[in-house]
């Protein structure tokens, strides 16, 4: 089963990379860009056909290792 995990900094946490990209876009004349936030996408290939169980397990992986709950939020997409 293909599983996609999206990880993003929580909105109140600084994202120096995103801010730098936003400034760079403004330098190129893209003044309509108000802000940029970076994140990370992980593509997992997970065995098993019980979607609820796969989701539970992957969410557990996020809590434990893939995301840092102190500063990040995550979203799990199946398929």
């Amino acid at each position: 089963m293909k599983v996609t995990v999206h990880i993003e900094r929580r909105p109140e946490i600084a994202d120096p990379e995103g801010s730098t990209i936003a400034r760079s876009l403004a330098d190129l004349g893209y003044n309509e860009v108000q802000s940029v936030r970076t994140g990370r996408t992980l593509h997992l290939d997970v065995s098993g056909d019980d979607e609820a169980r796969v989701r539970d397990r992957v969410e557990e992986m996020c809590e434990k290792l893939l995301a840092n709950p102190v500063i990040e939020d995550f979203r799990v997409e199946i398929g």
Partner: protein
Amino acid sequence: MSRIGVVVFPGSNCELDVQWALQSLGAEAELVWHRETDLRGLDGVVLPGGFAHGDYLRTGAIARFSPVMEPIQQMAADGRPVVGICNGFQILCEAHLLPGALIANRDLSFICRFVDLEVVDTDTVLTAATEVGRHIRLPLNSYEGQYTDPSGEARIVVRYQEDVNGSQNGAAAIANAAGNVVGIMPHPERALEEVLGSGDGRVLLEGLIAATERVPA
């Protein structure tokens, strides 16, 4: 004589500096591989700087699950000194032994220079030999050195005198509530000799060694 473990993760690179520094100040310091699960006989541990497990995913994220972290959690709970320097600080945050997290420096630059600091709390294993308000100078050598703590409750031990990397409230070192777990971003082990730029790391490491000599039985 106190025995201090210096933990070696795959990718650590400051372990020999830390070992040398502790030994030159009179402690017994031994390298401990990250797969070790028995830390009996050690009075404290230092997690040195470097790039544990390649810093993959996030700094410290994978190191947190190294087998050695289980007895280190126990040592921390027992009140024994656990100090993380630079990458070691990042690992202690990921392991939730310290609050908050370290993210990329505000200006996205790798900062490699001496920084001026002020000790603001001396009730910890790393700062017990200093006094509040003391100014010290240590080398900083990090990219992910910006400390952030959404809870806003971190106990700051040492502050940057100027804003060098965007750290919340200028935090350069923080401690847990008991003061036996401390994370510091600059490197005291690289500041033992005036002739090399600063001898201000001595007072911190001497405090740590003294703390390991009076650990709970």
